[in-house]
Protein backbone atom coordinates (compact mmCIF):
# COMPACT_ATOMS: atom_id res chain seq x y z
CA UNK A 1 0.00 0.00 0.00
CA UNK A 2 1.39 3.37 -0.99
CA UNK A 3 -0.13 6.42 0.63
CA UNK A 4 0.45 9.98 -0.49
CA UNK A 5 -0.08 12.68 2.14
CA UNK A 6 -0.06 16.29 0.93
CA UNK A 7 0.77 18.72 3.74
CA UNK A 8 0.63 22.49 4.05
CA UNK A 9 2.72 24.87 6.12
CA UNK A 10 0.54 27.19 8.22
CA UNK A 11 0.98 29.51 11.22
CA UNK A 12 0.78 27.72 14.57
CA UNK A 13 -2.87 27.93 15.69
CA UNK A 14 -1.61 29.45 18.96
CA UNK A 15 0.01 32.37 17.11
CA UNK A 16 -1.72 35.73 17.23
CA UNK A 17 -2.27 36.71 13.60
CA UNK A 18 -1.75 40.33 12.58
CA UNK A 19 -2.95 41.56 9.20
CA UNK A 20 -0.54 43.91 7.39
CA UNK A 21 -1.71 47.51 7.22
CA UNK A 22 -2.09 47.41 3.41
CA UNK A 23 -4.18 44.22 3.62
CA UNK A 24 -1.81 42.33 1.33
CA UNK A 25 -1.17 39.52 3.79
CA UNK A 26 -0.31 38.73 7.38
CA UNK A 27 2.80 39.80 9.31
CA UNK A 28 5.09 36.79 9.29
CA UNK A 29 7.78 37.98 11.70
CA UNK A 30 7.56 35.98 14.94
CA UNK A 31 5.16 33.50 13.37
CA UNK A 32 5.89 29.90 14.24
CA UNK A 33 5.09 27.58 11.34
CA UNK A 34 3.66 24.12 11.72
CA UNK A 35 2.06 21.37 9.66
CA UNK A 36 -1.61 22.20 9.13
CA UNK A 37 -3.27 20.33 12.05
CA UNK A 38 -5.70 18.49 9.75
CA UNK A 39 -2.77 17.35 7.59
CA UNK A 40 -0.98 16.16 10.70
CA UNK A 41 -4.02 13.96 11.34
CA UNK A 42 -3.65 12.70 7.76
CA UNK A 43 0.02 11.82 8.37
CA UNK A 44 -0.98 10.00 11.55
CA UNK A 45 -3.69 8.01 9.75
CA UNK A 46 -1.25 6.99 7.01
CA UNK A 47 1.29 5.89 9.64
CA UNK A 48 -1.38 3.79 11.37
CA UNK A 49 -2.10 2.02 8.09
CA UNK A 50 1.63 1.39 7.74
CA UNK A 51 1.77 -0.05 11.25
CA UNK A 52 -0.89 -2.59 10.28
CA UNK A 53 0.58 -3.24 6.82
CA UNK A 54 4.36 -2.83 7.30
CA UNK A 55 5.08 -3.15 3.58
CA UNK A 56 3.38 0.21 3.02
CA UNK A 57 5.11 3.39 2.02
CA UNK A 58 4.07 6.83 3.24
CA UNK A 59 5.13 9.71 1.00
CA UNK A 60 4.54 13.28 2.15
CA UNK A 61 4.33 16.03 -0.44
CA UNK A 62 4.20 19.80 -0.15
CA UNK A 63 3.75 22.54 -2.71
CA UNK A 64 5.58 25.63 -1.55
CA UNK A 65 8.79 27.50 -0.88
CA UNK A 66 12.09 25.98 0.34
CA UNK A 67 11.20 26.75 3.97
CA UNK A 68 8.41 24.16 3.73
CA UNK A 69 11.13 21.54 4.04
CA UNK A 70 10.84 22.05 7.81
CA UNK A 71 7.30 20.68 7.88
CA UNK A 72 8.22 17.81 5.56
CA UNK A 73 11.06 16.93 7.94
CA UNK A 74 8.63 16.97 10.85
CA UNK A 75 6.43 14.50 8.98
CA UNK A 76 9.49 12.36 8.24
CA UNK A 77 10.37 12.49 11.95
CA UNK A 78 6.86 11.26 12.76
CA UNK A 79 7.60 8.25 10.57
CA UNK A 80 6.85 9.04 6.90
CA UNK A 81 9.25 7.28 4.53
CA UNK A 82 10.16 10.04 2.10
CA UNK A 83 9.16 13.51 1.04
CA UNK A 84 8.60 15.50 -2.12
CA UNK A 85 8.68 19.29 -2.25
CA UNK A 86 7.35 20.93 -5.38
CA UNK A 87 9.05 24.32 -5.27
CA UNK A 88 6.88 27.25 -6.20
CA UNK A 89 6.72 30.90 -5.19
CA UNK A 90 3.46 32.47 -4.07
CA UNK A 91 0.84 33.42 -4.95
CA UNK A 92 -0.58 29.97 -5.67
CA UNK A 93 -4.31 29.36 -5.76
CA UNK A 94 -6.09 26.17 -4.76
CA UNK A 95 -6.64 25.12 -8.37
CA UNK A 96 -2.91 25.25 -9.07
CA UNK A 97 -2.10 23.24 -5.93
CA UNK A 98 -4.65 20.60 -6.90
CA UNK A 99 -3.24 20.36 -10.44
CA UNK A 100 0.30 20.02 -9.12
CA UNK A 101 -0.74 17.35 -6.61
CA UNK A 102 -2.64 15.47 -9.34
CA UNK A 103 0.55 15.46 -11.37
CA UNK A 104 2.62 14.19 -8.42
CA UNK A 105 -0.02 11.50 -7.85
CA UNK A 106 0.18 10.49 -11.51
CA UNK A 107 3.95 9.99 -11.10
CA UNK A 108 3.83 8.35 -7.67
CA UNK A 109 0.77 6.16 -8.35
CA UNK A 110 -0.39 5.88 -4.72
CA UNK A 111 -3.23 3.57 -3.68
CA UNK A 112 -4.59 6.22 -1.38
CA UNK A 113 -4.26 9.96 -0.83
CA UNK A 114 -5.05 11.29 2.64
CA UNK A 115 -5.08 15.02 3.38
CA UNK A 116 -6.67 17.51 5.73
CA UNK A 117 -10.23 18.59 5.02
CA UNK A 118 -9.00 22.18 5.06
CA UNK A 119 -6.00 24.28 6.06
CA UNK A 120 -6.43 26.43 9.12
CA UNK A 121 -5.02 29.53 7.38
CA UNK A 122 -7.48 30.12 4.53
CA UNK A 123 -10.00 27.38 5.44
CA UNK A 124 -10.67 26.78 1.73
CA UNK A 125 -11.73 23.14 1.98
CA UNK A 126 -11.15 22.54 -1.75
CA UNK A 127 -7.93 20.64 -2.47
CA UNK A 128 -9.17 17.14 -1.61
CA UNK A 129 -12.30 17.47 -3.73
CA UNK A 130 -10.49 19.06 -6.70
CA UNK A 131 -7.76 16.44 -6.56
CA UNK A 132 -10.25 13.56 -6.63
CA UNK A 133 -12.01 15.16 -9.59
CA UNK A 134 -8.78 15.75 -11.53
CA UNK A 135 -7.70 12.15 -10.95
CA UNK A 136 -11.16 10.74 -11.55
CA UNK A 137 -10.96 8.94 -8.20
CA UNK A 138 -13.66 8.42 -5.56
CA UNK A 139 -13.49 10.70 -2.54
CA UNK A 140 -14.62 10.59 1.08
CA UNK A 141 -14.30 13.90 2.86
CA UNK A 142 -14.46 14.77 6.59
CA UNK A 143 -13.41 11.28 7.66
CA UNK A 144 -13.76 10.39 11.33
CA UNK A 145 -12.96 6.69 10.82
CA UNK A 146 -11.07 4.87 8.08
CA UNK A 147 -10.89 1.13 7.45
CA UNK A 148 -9.05 -0.67 4.69
CA UNK A 149 -9.79 -4.22 3.59
CA UNK A 150 -9.63 -6.21 0.34
CA UNK A 151 -8.77 -3.27 -1.89
CA UNK A 152 -11.66 -1.23 -0.55
CA UNK A 153 -11.80 1.66 1.81
CA UNK A 154 -14.64 2.29 4.24
CA UNK A 155 -14.92 5.77 5.66
CA UNK A 156 -17.20 7.12 8.34
CA UNK A 157 -17.68 10.82 7.72
CA UNK A 158 -19.12 13.60 9.80
CA UNK A 159 -22.01 15.33 8.13
CA UNK A 160 -24.46 17.88 9.48
CA UNK A 161 -27.14 15.34 10.34
CA UNK A 162 -24.81 12.76 11.93
CA UNK A 163 -22.52 10.08 10.55
CA UNK A 164 -22.43 8.69 7.04
CA UNK A 165 -20.56 5.57 5.97
CA UNK A 166 -19.08 5.37 2.48
CA UNK A 167 -17.18 2.58 0.81
CA UNK A 168 -15.12 2.80 -2.37
CA UNK A 169 -12.54 0.76 -4.29
CA UNK A 170 -8.94 2.02 -4.21
CA UNK A 171 -7.40 4.26 -5.35
CA UNK A 172 -9.21 7.15 -3.72
CA UNK A 173 -8.95 10.40 -1.80
CA UNK A 174 -9.77 10.91 1.88
CA UNK A 175 -9.88 14.20 3.75
CA UNK A 176 -9.57 14.11 7.51
CA UNK A 177 -11.73 15.59 10.24
CA UNK A 178 -10.58 16.52 13.72
CA UNK A 179 -11.81 13.41 15.49
CA UNK A 180 -10.11 10.87 13.22
CA UNK A 181 -7.13 10.42 15.53
CA UNK A 182 -4.64 12.16 17.82
CA UNK A 183 -1.39 12.66 15.92
CA UNK A 184 1.79 11.33 17.49
CA UNK A 185 4.73 13.54 18.29
CA UNK A 186 8.15 12.80 16.86
CA UNK A 187 10.52 10.73 18.97
CA UNK A 188 14.13 11.80 19.26
CA UNK A 189 15.38 8.77 17.29
CA UNK A 190 12.66 9.63 14.73
CA UNK A 191 14.04 13.17 14.41
CA UNK A 192 17.57 11.82 13.93
CA UNK A 193 16.47 9.27 11.32
CA UNK A 194 14.49 11.88 9.42
CA UNK A 195 17.72 13.68 8.51
CA UNK A 196 18.76 10.70 6.43
CA UNK A 197 15.46 10.16 4.63
CA UNK A 198 14.98 11.28 1.03
CA UNK A 199 13.52 14.74 0.45
CA UNK A 200 13.20 15.30 -3.28
CA UNK A 201 12.75 18.82 -4.62
CA UNK A 202 10.99 19.41 -7.91
CA UNK A 203 11.04 22.92 -9.41
CA UNK A 204 7.47 23.51 -10.52
CA UNK A 205 8.59 24.71 -13.97
CA UNK A 206 9.77 21.20 -14.81
CA UNK A 207 6.21 19.90 -14.54
CA UNK A 208 5.07 21.95 -17.54
CA UNK A 209 1.64 22.68 -16.09
CA UNK A 210 -0.57 25.65 -16.81
CA UNK A 211 -0.95 27.20 -13.38
CA UNK A 212 -2.44 30.57 -14.24
CA UNK A 213 -4.33 31.59 -11.09
CA UNK A 214 -8.09 31.77 -11.27
CA UNK A 215 -8.34 33.23 -7.81
CA UNK A 216 -7.00 36.55 -6.65
CA UNK A 217 -6.74 37.65 -3.01
CA UNK A 218 -7.74 41.30 -3.07
CA UNK A 219 -7.45 42.27 0.54
CA UNK A 220 -7.18 40.78 4.01
CA UNK A 221 -8.85 42.45 6.97
CA UNK A 222 -9.13 41.63 10.64
CA UNK A 223 -12.59 40.77 11.89
CA UNK A 224 -14.10 43.65 13.82
CA UNK A 225 -13.40 43.69 17.55
CA UNK A 226 -15.86 41.85 19.75
CA UNK A 227 -18.09 44.23 21.62
CA UNK A 228 -18.53 43.94 25.36
CA UNK A 229 -21.61 41.99 26.45
CA UNK A 230 -24.66 43.45 28.10
CA UNK A 231 -26.78 42.15 30.93
CA UNK A 232 -30.52 42.06 30.46
CA UNK A 233 -33.12 41.80 33.20
CA UNK A 234 -35.41 39.18 31.73
CA UNK A 235 -35.93 36.69 28.93
CA UNK A 236 -38.62 38.91 27.52
CA UNK A 237 -36.22 41.83 27.26
CA UNK A 238 -33.67 39.56 25.58
CA UNK A 239 -36.19 38.44 22.97
CA UNK A 240 -37.26 42.00 22.27
CA UNK A 241 -33.64 43.17 21.89
CA UNK A 242 -32.81 40.26 19.60
CA UNK A 243 -35.72 41.38 17.51
CA UNK A 244 -35.38 45.15 17.55
CA UNK A 245 -31.58 45.67 17.88
CA UNK A 246 -29.77 42.55 16.76
CA UNK A 247 -32.47 41.86 14.18
CA UNK A 248 -31.86 38.13 14.29
CA UNK A 249 -35.43 37.20 15.21
Amino acid at each position, binding site marked *: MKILVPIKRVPDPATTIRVLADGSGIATDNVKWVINPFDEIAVEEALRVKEKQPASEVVVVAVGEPAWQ*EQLRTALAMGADRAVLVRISPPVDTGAVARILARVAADEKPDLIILGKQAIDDDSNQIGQMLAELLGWPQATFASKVELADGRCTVVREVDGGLETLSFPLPGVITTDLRLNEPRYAS*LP*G*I*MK*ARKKELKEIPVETLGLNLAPLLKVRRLASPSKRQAGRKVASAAELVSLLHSEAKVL
Partner: protein
Amino acid sequence: MDFELTAVQQEIVHGVRQLCKRFPDAYWREHDAAHEFPHAFYHAVAEAGYLGVAIPGQYGGSGLGIAEAALLMREVAYAGAMNAASSIHLSIFGLTPVVLHGAEEMKRKYLPEVVSGKLHAAFAVTEPDAGNDITHIKTFARRDGDYYVINGRKIFTTKAQVARKMLLLARTIPLENTSRKTDGLSLFFADLDRAAVEVRELEKLGRHAVDTNILFIDNLRVPATDLVGEEGRGFRYLLDGLNPERILVAAEAVGIGRAAVDRAVRYAKERVVFGRPIGQNQAIAHPLAEAYAKLEVADLITIKAAWLFDQRKPCGAEAAVAKLLAAEAAFQACDRAVQTLGGYGYMREYDVERYFRECRMLKIAPLSQEMALNMISEHVLRLPRSY
Protein backbone atom coordinates in the same frame (compact mmCIF):
# COMPACT_ATOMS: atom_id res chain seq x y z
CA MET B 1 28.79 33.68 13.69
CA ASP B 2 25.44 31.93 13.72
CA PHE B 3 22.66 32.26 16.29
CA GLU B 4 20.28 29.95 14.44
CA LEU B 5 19.36 26.62 16.03
CA THR B 6 20.16 23.64 13.82
CA ALA B 7 17.29 21.85 12.12
CA VAL B 8 17.55 18.96 14.59
CA GLN B 9 17.51 21.40 17.52
CA GLN B 10 14.39 23.09 16.14
CA GLU B 11 12.75 19.71 15.71
CA ILE B 12 13.60 18.82 19.31
CA VAL B 13 12.02 22.02 20.59
CA HIS B 14 8.91 21.33 18.50
CA GLY B 15 8.76 17.65 19.44
CA VAL B 16 9.14 18.28 23.16
CA ARG B 17 6.44 20.96 23.08
CA GLN B 18 4.08 18.54 21.36
CA LEU B 19 4.83 15.89 23.96
CA CYS B 20 4.35 18.28 26.85
CA LYS B 21 0.93 19.36 25.54
CA ARG B 22 -0.37 16.01 26.74
CA PHE B 23 0.49 17.03 30.30
CA PRO B 24 -1.42 20.23 30.94
CA ASP B 25 -1.26 22.47 34.01
CA ALA B 26 -3.87 20.42 35.83
CA TYR B 27 -1.61 17.36 35.67
CA TRP B 28 1.22 19.21 37.39
CA ARG B 29 -1.06 20.97 39.86
CA GLU B 30 -2.54 17.63 40.93
CA HIS B 31 0.76 15.79 41.17
CA ASP B 32 2.23 18.63 43.18
CA ALA B 33 -0.72 18.69 45.57
CA ALA B 34 -0.70 14.89 45.97
CA HIS B 35 3.11 14.68 46.30
CA GLU B 36 2.99 12.08 43.56
CA PHE B 37 5.83 11.31 41.16
CA PRO B 38 4.82 12.10 37.53
CA HIS B 39 5.34 8.56 36.22
CA ALA B 40 3.18 9.01 33.10
CA PHE B 41 5.16 12.06 32.04
CA TYR B 42 8.49 10.43 32.82
CA HIS B 43 7.59 7.37 30.73
CA ALA B 44 6.33 9.47 27.83
CA VAL B 45 9.68 11.29 27.76
CA ALA B 46 11.53 7.97 27.97
CA GLU B 47 9.43 6.36 25.25
CA ALA B 48 10.09 9.25 22.90
CA GLY B 49 13.80 8.64 23.42
CA TYR B 50 14.60 11.95 25.09
CA LEU B 51 16.18 10.54 28.24
CA GLY B 52 19.02 9.34 26.02
CA VAL B 53 19.56 12.69 24.33
CA ALA B 54 23.17 13.02 25.52
CA ILE B 55 24.02 9.37 26.09
CA PRO B 56 26.25 7.80 23.41
CA GLY B 57 24.62 5.80 20.63
CA GLN B 58 26.24 2.48 21.55
CA TYR B 59 24.37 2.56 24.88
CA GLY B 60 21.00 3.28 23.33
CA GLY B 61 21.11 7.07 23.41
CA SER B 62 21.14 9.63 20.62
CA GLY B 63 24.64 10.92 21.33
CA LEU B 64 23.72 14.58 20.99
CA GLY B 65 25.22 17.38 23.04
CA ILE B 66 24.40 19.42 26.10
CA ALA B 67 22.94 22.09 23.80
CA GLU B 68 20.19 19.68 22.73
CA ALA B 69 19.76 18.51 26.33
CA ALA B 70 19.44 22.13 27.46
CA LEU B 71 16.73 22.83 24.87
CA LEU B 72 14.89 19.73 26.05
CA MET B 73 15.06 20.85 29.68
CA ARG B 74 14.07 24.41 28.85
CA GLU B 75 10.93 23.26 27.06
CA VAL B 76 10.11 20.70 29.74
CA ALA B 77 10.40 23.34 32.47
CA TYR B 78 8.34 25.73 30.35
CA ALA B 79 5.52 23.20 30.33
CA GLY B 80 5.66 21.54 33.73
CA ALA B 81 8.09 23.70 35.72
CA MET B 82 10.47 22.06 38.17
CA ASN B 83 8.25 19.05 38.88
CA ALA B 84 8.68 18.09 35.24
CA ALA B 85 12.34 19.07 34.96
CA SER B 86 13.49 17.40 38.17
CA SER B 87 11.69 14.17 37.33
CA ILE B 88 14.09 13.61 34.42
CA HIS B 89 17.02 15.93 35.18
CA LEU B 90 19.35 13.27 36.60
CA SER B 91 18.68 10.82 33.78
CA ILE B 92 19.75 13.40 31.23
CA PHE B 93 23.18 14.33 32.54
CA GLY B 94 23.61 12.69 35.99
CA LEU B 95 25.52 9.71 34.72
CA THR B 96 28.17 11.79 32.95
CA PRO B 97 30.86 10.39 35.30
CA VAL B 98 29.77 6.85 34.38
CA VAL B 99 29.76 7.66 30.66
CA LEU B 100 33.24 9.17 30.87
CA HIS B 101 34.93 6.98 33.48
CA GLY B 102 32.80 3.90 34.13
CA ALA B 103 33.95 0.42 33.13
CA GLU B 104 32.57 -0.84 29.83
CA GLU B 105 30.53 -3.48 31.61
CA MET B 106 28.94 -0.92 33.94
CA LYS B 107 28.00 1.26 30.98
CA ARG B 108 26.54 -1.62 28.99
CA LYS B 109 24.56 -2.84 31.95
CA TYR B 110 23.05 0.41 33.16
CA LEU B 111 23.04 3.12 30.51
CA PRO B 112 20.46 1.44 28.24
CA GLU B 113 18.19 1.07 31.28
CA VAL B 114 18.54 4.76 32.02
CA VAL B 115 17.66 5.62 28.43
CA SER B 116 14.60 3.36 28.41
CA GLY B 117 13.43 4.86 31.69
CA LYS B 118 13.55 1.56 33.55
CA LEU B 119 16.27 2.76 35.89
CA HIS B 120 15.86 5.88 38.02
CA ALA B 121 19.12 7.07 39.51
CA ALA B 122 19.66 9.43 42.44
CA PHE B 123 22.65 11.63 43.12
CA ALA B 124 23.94 11.31 46.67
CA VAL B 125 26.68 13.84 47.25
CA THR B 126 25.53 16.54 49.70
CA GLU B 127 25.80 15.78 53.42
CA PRO B 128 24.44 17.47 56.53
CA ASP B 129 27.91 18.50 57.69
CA ALA B 130 29.32 19.31 54.28
CA GLY B 131 27.12 21.54 52.14
CA ASN B 132 28.89 23.40 49.40
CA ASP B 133 32.18 22.19 50.81
CA ILE B 134 31.98 18.76 49.23
CA THR B 135 35.50 17.63 50.13
CA HIS B 136 34.46 17.60 53.78
CA ILE B 137 31.93 14.80 53.43
CA LYS B 138 32.12 12.12 56.10
CA THR B 139 30.47 9.12 54.42
CA PHE B 140 33.12 6.46 54.31
CA ALA B 141 33.60 3.38 52.11
CA ARG B 142 35.81 0.70 53.64
CA ARG B 143 37.22 -1.98 51.37
CA ASP B 144 36.27 -5.52 52.42
CA GLY B 145 37.45 -8.13 49.89
CA ASP B 146 35.44 -7.74 46.70
CA TYR B 147 33.14 -5.27 48.43
CA TYR B 148 33.07 -1.85 49.96
CA VAL B 149 31.14 -1.28 53.16
CA ILE B 150 29.65 2.20 53.26
CA ASN B 151 28.45 4.20 56.25
CA GLY B 152 27.27 7.76 56.55
CA ARG B 153 24.45 10.20 55.86
CA LYS B 154 23.39 12.02 52.73
CA ILE B 155 20.97 14.92 52.59
CA PHE B 156 18.80 16.50 49.88
CA THR B 157 19.04 13.31 47.82
CA THR B 158 16.42 13.85 45.15
CA LYS B 159 14.34 10.96 43.77
CA ALA B 160 15.61 8.47 46.36
CA GLN B 161 11.99 7.31 46.79
CA VAL B 162 11.83 6.05 43.21
CA ALA B 163 15.50 5.31 42.50
CA ARG B 164 17.04 1.85 42.41
CA LYS B 165 20.61 3.12 42.02
CA MET B 166 22.50 6.13 43.28
CA LEU B 167 25.68 7.82 42.26
CA LEU B 168 27.30 8.13 45.67
CA LEU B 169 30.39 10.00 46.75
CA ALA B 170 32.29 8.61 49.72
CA ARG B 171 35.70 8.97 51.25
CA THR B 172 37.98 5.98 50.81
CA ILE B 173 40.85 7.77 52.57
CA PRO B 174 40.12 10.01 55.56
CA LEU B 175 40.59 13.71 54.88
CA GLU B 176 43.40 14.03 57.42
CA ASN B 177 45.43 11.33 55.60
CA THR B 178 45.37 13.03 52.20
CA SER B 179 47.80 15.65 50.94
CA ARG B 180 45.07 17.36 48.89
CA LYS B 181 41.52 17.57 50.16
CA THR B 182 40.19 16.61 46.72
CA ASP B 183 42.01 13.26 46.95
CA GLY B 184 40.71 10.12 48.62
CA LEU B 185 37.11 10.54 47.44
CA SER B 186 35.52 7.76 45.39
CA LEU B 187 32.37 7.56 43.33
CA PHE B 188 30.08 4.52 43.39
CA PHE B 189 27.08 3.60 41.29
CA ALA B 190 25.52 1.77 44.20
CA ASP B 191 22.25 -0.05 44.74
CA LEU B 192 19.86 1.97 46.85
CA ASP B 193 19.31 -1.08 49.02
CA ARG B 194 16.50 -0.27 51.45
CA ALA B 195 17.78 -2.92 53.91
CA ALA B 196 20.89 -0.84 54.53
CA VAL B 197 19.69 2.64 53.63
CA GLU B 198 16.88 4.38 55.44
CA VAL B 199 15.28 6.92 53.13
CA ARG B 200 13.30 9.65 54.82
CA GLU B 201 11.50 12.22 52.74
CA LEU B 202 11.99 15.87 53.67
CA GLU B 203 9.19 18.41 53.58
CA LYS B 204 10.03 21.34 51.38
CA LEU B 205 8.71 24.60 49.94
CA GLY B 206 7.66 23.26 46.57
CA ARG B 207 8.27 20.81 43.73
CA HIS B 208 6.33 18.29 45.72
CA ALA B 209 5.92 15.75 42.93
CA VAL B 210 9.61 14.96 43.09
CA ASP B 211 10.89 13.84 46.47
CA THR B 212 14.02 15.03 48.26
CA ASN B 213 15.34 12.95 51.14
CA ILE B 214 17.78 12.31 53.89
CA LEU B 215 19.59 8.96 53.67
CA PHE B 216 20.95 7.05 56.63
CA ILE B 217 23.45 4.56 55.26
CA ASP B 218 24.26 1.72 57.61
CA ASN B 219 26.78 -0.90 56.43
CA LEU B 220 25.72 -0.80 52.80
CA ARG B 221 27.71 -3.53 50.98
CA VAL B 222 28.61 -2.46 47.49
CA PRO B 223 30.45 -4.77 45.08
CA ALA B 224 33.77 -3.35 43.89
CA THR B 225 32.41 -3.51 40.33
CA ASP B 226 30.11 -0.61 41.29
CA LEU B 227 33.11 1.66 41.78
CA VAL B 228 33.17 4.25 39.00
CA GLY B 229 36.64 4.46 37.45
CA GLU B 230 39.53 4.41 39.88
CA GLU B 231 39.42 4.63 43.64
CA GLY B 232 40.33 8.07 44.98
CA ARG B 233 39.47 10.02 41.82
CA GLY B 234 35.76 10.50 42.53
CA PHE B 235 35.91 14.24 43.11
CA ARG B 236 37.58 14.81 39.75
CA TYR B 237 34.96 12.65 37.99
CA LEU B 238 32.24 14.67 39.64
CA LEU B 239 33.70 17.88 38.22
CA ASP B 240 33.04 16.59 34.69
CA GLY B 241 29.33 16.69 35.39
CA LEU B 242 29.24 20.09 37.06
CA ASN B 243 29.23 22.31 34.00
CA PRO B 244 26.55 20.30 32.18
CA GLU B 245 24.42 20.39 35.31
CA ARG B 246 24.75 24.17 35.65
CA ILE B 247 23.87 24.62 32.00
CA LEU B 248 20.81 22.39 32.27
CA VAL B 249 19.63 24.10 35.42
CA ALA B 250 20.04 27.48 33.75
CA ALA B 251 17.94 26.24 30.84
CA GLU B 252 15.29 25.00 33.25
CA ALA B 253 15.26 28.41 34.92
CA VAL B 254 14.71 30.12 31.58
CA GLY B 255 11.84 27.73 30.88
CA ILE B 256 10.00 28.28 34.14
CA GLY B 257 10.62 32.03 33.93
CA ARG B 258 9.13 32.20 30.45
CA ALA B 259 6.12 30.22 31.57
CA ALA B 260 5.56 32.75 34.35
CA VAL B 261 5.92 35.75 32.03
CA ASP B 262 3.49 34.20 29.54
CA ARG B 263 0.86 33.66 32.22
CA ALA B 264 1.31 37.15 33.57
CA VAL B 265 1.14 38.79 30.15
CA ARG B 266 -2.00 36.90 29.20
CA TYR B 267 -3.64 37.89 32.48
CA ALA B 268 -2.48 41.51 32.23
CA LYS B 269 -4.19 41.85 28.87
CA GLU B 270 -7.47 40.44 30.11
CA ARG B 271 -7.88 41.70 33.64
CA VAL B 272 -9.73 44.98 33.64
CA VAL B 273 -9.54 47.16 36.76
CA PHE B 274 -10.31 50.89 36.92
CA GLY B 275 -11.71 50.54 33.42
CA ARG B 276 -8.55 49.39 31.67
CA PRO B 277 -6.49 46.24 31.33
CA ILE B 278 -3.97 46.18 34.17
CA GLY B 279 -1.20 45.65 31.59
CA GLN B 280 -1.80 49.20 30.41
CA ASN B 281 -0.28 50.41 33.68
CA GLN B 282 3.46 50.66 33.24
CA ALA B 283 3.89 49.56 36.84
CA ILE B 284 2.63 46.18 35.64
CA ALA B 285 4.04 46.22 32.11
CA HIS B 286 7.61 47.33 32.72
CA PRO B 287 8.57 44.70 35.27
CA LEU B 288 7.26 42.06 32.86
CA ALA B 289 9.24 43.58 30.01
CA GLU B 290 12.29 43.57 32.23
CA ALA B 291 11.74 39.95 33.25
CA TYR B 292 11.39 39.02 29.60
CA ALA B 293 14.62 40.83 28.71
CA LYS B 294 16.59 39.17 31.50
CA LEU B 295 15.35 35.74 30.48
CA GLU B 296 16.44 36.40 26.90
CA VAL B 297 19.95 37.26 28.08
CA ALA B 298 20.07 34.22 30.33
CA ASP B 299 18.94 32.04 27.44
CA LEU B 300 21.71 33.37 25.21
CA ILE B 301 24.52 32.77 27.68
CA THR B 302 23.10 29.35 28.50
CA ILE B 303 23.14 28.30 24.87
CA LYS B 304 26.62 29.76 24.49
CA ALA B 305 27.87 27.79 27.49
CA ALA B 306 26.30 24.63 26.05
CA TRP B 307 27.86 25.29 22.67
CA LEU B 308 31.29 25.76 24.26
CA PHE B 309 30.90 22.52 26.20
CA ASP B 310 29.89 20.62 23.08
CA GLN B 311 32.90 22.09 21.23
CA ARG B 312 35.09 20.71 24.05
CA LYS B 313 36.10 24.26 24.94
CA PRO B 314 36.41 25.61 28.49
CA CYS B 315 32.96 26.73 29.67
CA GLY B 316 33.25 27.01 33.46
CA ALA B 317 32.86 30.78 33.52
CA GLU B 318 29.94 30.82 31.07
CA ALA B 319 28.17 27.97 32.89
CA ALA B 320 28.47 29.83 36.20
CA VAL B 321 27.26 33.09 34.64
CA ALA B 322 24.35 31.26 32.98
CA LYS B 323 23.30 29.62 36.24
CA LEU B 324 23.60 32.92 38.13
CA LEU B 325 21.63 35.04 35.64
CA ALA B 326 19.02 32.44 34.79
CA ALA B 327 18.15 31.64 38.41
CA GLU B 328 17.81 35.34 39.20
CA ALA B 329 15.78 36.06 36.07
CA ALA B 330 13.48 33.12 36.76
CA PHE B 331 12.88 34.24 40.32
CA GLN B 332 12.14 37.78 39.24
CA ALA B 333 9.79 36.56 36.50
CA CYS B 334 7.86 34.26 38.84
CA ASP B 335 7.63 36.92 41.54
CA ARG B 336 6.29 39.44 39.02
CA ALA B 337 3.82 36.90 37.71
CA VAL B 338 2.38 36.42 41.21
CA GLN B 339 2.23 40.20 41.63
CA THR B 340 0.54 40.68 38.25
CA LEU B 341 -2.17 38.19 39.11
CA GLY B 342 -2.75 39.87 42.46
CA GLY B 343 -4.85 37.75 44.82
CA TYR B 344 -5.33 35.14 42.13
CA GLY B 345 -1.56 34.85 41.86
CA TYR B 346 -1.51 33.53 45.41
CA MET B 347 -4.09 30.85 44.63
CA ARG B 348 -3.26 27.29 43.58
CA GLU B 349 -5.63 27.35 40.63
CA TYR B 350 -3.61 29.95 38.74
CA ASP B 351 -0.30 28.05 38.75
CA VAL B 352 2.06 30.98 39.15
CA GLU B 353 2.31 30.44 42.92
CA ARG B 354 3.58 26.94 42.09
CA TYR B 355 6.21 28.41 39.76
CA PHE B 356 7.13 30.89 42.47
CA ARG B 357 7.65 28.15 45.06
CA GLU B 358 9.56 25.95 42.65
CA CYS B 359 11.88 28.50 41.13
CA ARG B 360 13.25 29.51 44.51
CA MET B 361 15.37 26.37 44.68
CA LEU B 362 17.26 27.43 41.56
CA LYS B 363 19.06 30.12 43.55
CA ILE B 364 20.27 27.47 46.02
CA ALA B 365 20.82 24.24 44.14
CA PRO B 366 22.81 22.73 42.60
CA LEU B 367 25.12 25.72 42.92
CA SER B 368 24.17 28.64 45.11
CA GLN B 369 24.26 32.16 43.71
CA GLU B 370 27.04 32.96 46.19
CA MET B 371 29.17 30.06 45.00
CA ALA B 372 28.59 31.06 41.38
CA LEU B 373 29.81 34.56 42.23
CA ASN B 374 32.77 33.05 44.09
CA MET B 375 33.68 31.13 40.96
CA ILE B 376 33.48 34.18 38.74
CA SER B 377 35.46 36.30 41.23
CA GLU B 378 38.17 33.75 41.61
CA HIS B 379 38.49 32.06 38.22
CA VAL B 380 37.52 34.85 35.84
CA LEU B 381 38.41 38.04 37.66
CA ARG B 382 41.38 36.40 39.42
CA LEU B 383 40.49 37.95 42.76
CA PRO B 384 41.90 36.24 45.83
CA ARG B 385 40.00 33.15 46.92
CA SER B 386 37.64 34.01 49.75
CA TYR B 387 37.19 30.61 51.37
